[in-house]
């Protein structure tokens, strides 16, 4: 989750009280995380990367409050001589696109530099998908000779002095030894060539999305002019990210220049802040929101969200990344209207409420068993590998999770394993312990859509308990449910031979009943005898 800290002084210029600031931010869709003496920290939703800079938030907030509503205008100067980037076809297999700009006449100080790096990192982490989808480079223009080339080379042909390193390194050395190189190595290693930006003097500026050159790569307080590039796989996304950056820098006082991009014969100029237009139907908006707005309401509401609106069409700010459909604009109408102004209503639509058959039956079973004084437990659907060992589950029967962060790594094949864990953990609690649990068990089954069969199980276990006691419970339950069952002698490794039964209904085995073997109990570090029954309920569900 991305957050951003906004200096309170800036917000106080717009609204006096802290409470009011928080209330308005929450209603604008940038909920307040925390408020300190100096700053207000906001949570930024993933659909609004344009709010990942202080300038972006202030721009949106001013409009939302009606202080500067409508679309903010920025001037983009035409490219000057050599404001060009040539995109070599060699990058198409690796990282095919870039969008670039030049911003001049900036006045940086420590705070502003930090702000820019902050925005860059947050864009990387969110819409940039950790630099995979988009990576941003910002370079001091005075160290670069224009025009610039974006090309891909064999790793062996790339050598430069990366940031935060002592000396020149080869591409492979960077990916293996440089800390930033190692972090992002997986994004390049899969390719046979790596992309680079180079200037007119053949100096390598960077190897995106990994690292910039030490020689040209860092902006300082002396920097006034910068070259910006975004590289990645989706040109539309790159253009919008570039728009977010240049408008932020323009708000910091910079003058924005376009660059000419040469994709072979196709020429393209970025950044382009020309707004896209989308139809918005007043009717659709009113239907979806349950309001009766008029045309002139839209003319008032949409500018509060930074749009321009005229005669059924909304102009979308070029830095918004999230407008895919009319509904996205309709949500902004609702936000401008104020979610707190929406009057809740429960419509008079006649529908019949109903519990599922499974719920009805399991509730009834639970009611019968609690009537016998049994306590219901509820355990995780996952079990630990060592528990699977204790239960001697075969390797090919295990259903394993990829990369579980917890010690629980397998789907449970039965409810017996969690039940034994519960008895082991409760060995110092008061006896008798008469338990039951209802829940899902998982087994491999290639016939299923997922390759896994799920079955609702019931386990009943009693400690100290013997065969007679557990069979009494089974008899009672079967009688209450009016389901005749059959018992046949059986063997099961966890249970004592000669005291084990297989439970059948309609000639199908649904489970087992018996006394746990002392060896099983010892393996689980349990000291009191346990009798147990476990059945699948699927067959029973079918009977009702």
């Amino acid at each position, binding site marked *: 989750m991305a957050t951003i800290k906004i200096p309170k002084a800036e917000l106080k210029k717009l609204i006096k009280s802290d409470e009011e600031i928080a209330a308005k931010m929450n*209603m604008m*869709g940038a*909920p307040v995380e925390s408020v300190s003496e100096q700053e207000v920290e906001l949570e930024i*939703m*993933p*659909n609004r990367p344009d709010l990942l800079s202080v300038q972006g938030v202030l721009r949106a907030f001013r409009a939302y409050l009606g202080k500067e509503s409508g679309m903010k205008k920025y001037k983009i100067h035409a490219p000057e001589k050599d404001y060009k980037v040539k995109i070599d076809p060699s990058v198409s297999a690796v990282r095919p696109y870039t969008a670039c700009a030049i911003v001049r006449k900036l006045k940086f100080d420590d705070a502003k530099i930090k702000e820019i790096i902050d925005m860059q990192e947050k864009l990387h982490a969110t819409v940039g*998908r950790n630099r995979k989808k988009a990576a941003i480079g910002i370079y001091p223009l005075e160290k670069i000779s224009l025009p610039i080339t974006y090309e891909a080379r064999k790793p062996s042909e790339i050598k430069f002095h990366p940031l935060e390193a002592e000396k020149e390194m080869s591409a492979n050395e960077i990916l293996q030894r440089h800390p930033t190189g190692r972090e992002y190595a997986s994004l390049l290693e899969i390719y046979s060539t790596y992309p680079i930006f180079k200037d007119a003097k053949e100096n390598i500026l960077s190897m995106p999305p990994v690292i910039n050159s030490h020689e040209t790569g860092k902006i300082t307080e002396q920097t006034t002019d910068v070259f910006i590039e975004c590289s990645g796989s989706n040109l539309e*996304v790159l253009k919008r990210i570039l728009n977010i950056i240049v408008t932020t820098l323009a708000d910091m006082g910079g003058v924005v220049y376009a660059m000419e991009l040469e994709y072979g014969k196709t020429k393209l100029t970025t950044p382009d802040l020309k707004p896209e237009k989308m139809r918005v139907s007043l009717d659709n908006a009113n*239907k979806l*929101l*349950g309001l009766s707005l008029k045309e002139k309401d839209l003319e008032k509401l949409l500018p509060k969200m930074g749009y321009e609106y005229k005669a059924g069409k909304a102009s979308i700010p070029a830095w918004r990344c999230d407008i*895919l*459909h*009319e509904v996205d604009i*309709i949500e902004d109408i609702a*936000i401008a209207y104020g*979610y*707190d102004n*929406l*009057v*809740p*209503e*429960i*419509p008079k*639509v*006649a*529908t*019949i*409420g109903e*519990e599922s058959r*499974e*719920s009805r039956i399991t509730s009834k079973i639970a009611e019968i068993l*609690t009537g*016998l*004084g*049994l306590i*219901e437990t*509820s355990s995780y*659907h*996952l079990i630990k590998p060592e528990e699977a060992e204790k239960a001697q589950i075969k390797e090919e029967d295990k259903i*394993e*999770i*990829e*990369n579980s*962060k917890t010690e*629980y790594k397998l*789907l449970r094949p039965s409810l017996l394993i969690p039940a034994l864990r*519960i008895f082991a*953990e*409760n060995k110092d*609690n*008061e006896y008798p*312990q008469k338990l039951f*649990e209802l829940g899902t068990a998982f087994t*491999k089954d290639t016939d299923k*859509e*997922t*390759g896994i069969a*799920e079955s609702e199980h019931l386990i009943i276990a009693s400690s100290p308990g013997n065969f007679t006691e557990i069979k009494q419970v089974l008899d009672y339950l079967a009688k209450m449910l009016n389901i005749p069952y059959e018992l046949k002698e059986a063997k099961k490794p966890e249970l004592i031979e000669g005291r084990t039964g297989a439970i059948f209904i309609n000639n199908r085995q649904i489970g087992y009943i018996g006394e746990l073997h002392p060896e099983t109990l010892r393996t689980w*570090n349990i000291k009191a005898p346990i009798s147990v029954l476990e059945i699948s309920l699927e067959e029973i569900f079918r009977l009702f």
Partner: protein
Amino acid sequence: MKQKGENPEKESKETEAIVEKLSPLEIKIIPFLKESIDKIEKKSGLDSVSVLRALKFLEAKGIVKLRTTAKTLVDLGTNGVYYKKNNLPERQLLMVLEKNHHLDLEEAKKLSKLSENEFKVSLGVLRSKALINMTGGKISLNAGKEELSKKSFEEQLLDALPAERETLPPELHYALDNLKKRKDIVEIKEKSVVEFELTSEGRKIAGKEIKSELLEEVTPEIIRDWQRGKKFRKYDILAPVPAIHGGKRHFVNEAITKGKRIWTDLGFKEMTGSKTTTSFWNFDALFTAQDHPVREIHDTFFIKGVKGALPDKELVSSVKKAHESGVGNSRGWQYKWNEETARRVLIRTHTTILSAQTLAKLKKEDMPAKFFAVGKCFRNETVDWKHLFEFNQTEGIVIDPNANLRHLIGYLKEFARKMGFEKIKIQPSYFPYTEPSLEGLAWNEEKKQWVEVLAAGIFRPEVTIPLLGTATPVLAWGPGFDRLMMAAYGISDMRELYSNDLKALRNKKAWIK
């Protein structure tokens, strides 16, 4: 002047008042009260629990004073019992080395028949006692016959158990420290020992045989032969009685039952479905782009080594189109959609898949319709007080051509009110599959802050067009249920939800709201 206590008349009256209240159990031990507890047990023929209960009753009547002191008992653990019989692993290894003075590590392990862990521990123990040397992957014995024949302190300790810790000689304390570190060899239990002394009241009646004419329990004979004037022994009705426990449902399920009832009361039908599913249903059908961070293994539990099947081709190609270039005037996410990614199998991260599957099955003539589910969902999380890898979600959808955002807020507020949250604040939020989206915060009076409890929106046309065939508005919500429930139960540590501590389960209060 007569002192208090020298008035035989008053004295006998007081004693009589006490005697009237004595239970048969107390009367049984009074003749032996001048003896120790052990002797009382023997002479009265009562077991230790009954004697202790009788003494506690007498204490309540001011006849004795009890004193409890804690003692530490050391006993054999499960492995300890086994090793006492079959020798400690280090002894087993020594016995092998006695026969072969030099051995390879692997060979020694094989011959000793020890487990990996036992073998490792034995090596450590024997090296620290300098009984063996290890060089270049070989073990050699470093002790003579005499030394080998001596029992180690650890072995002496196993022989001495069970025992009170204070009574063990100092050298065995050291051995105890060693064995405590190993698994289940020794068990340490705190035990309280009770002693008593007589009060001045007590001294008056201790040793007396008390004959009481008072009646005890009501029996069929007493009912049959009842005569006026007979008296019952008085009970100390203020005395505590032993606790009993009832059978009950797990409190999480009790809350879920409550949640389900709210939805059925509001006219919703329950949806069911499996917990394992393909990425297609969990993500793609819900317009979650394939490069969305939630689809990575550090957020979601994917299943190793299985590939799922996709539903019918028409639905798949429609979902693909929604992602790549959009359906119904949408631009889509503008990327190349990959079928293999959609086949990955996972345990559901939200119950919203049930909504997606329900929409895909819904017939036009069944509209308007309302569905709900309350069920387990899973996320790849480390476990701590505010995170669990399993949680319940309550899901709801309303499919109605006339549904709108105000209805959504109406349903949610009513649900929250029935769950016990009167004060709810609605504000904008974001989910990939709903637009508009909202979250609801409830006022937590205890913490004096707003807590996020609701998450909802109206399904995007990119979701409804492929699943439903039309862009009919579908109100949808999927707030976590556990947080709502925890607030109602006053639980602050999520781990308590599924710890299955029987003591806690037995004592959990019923939910009445």
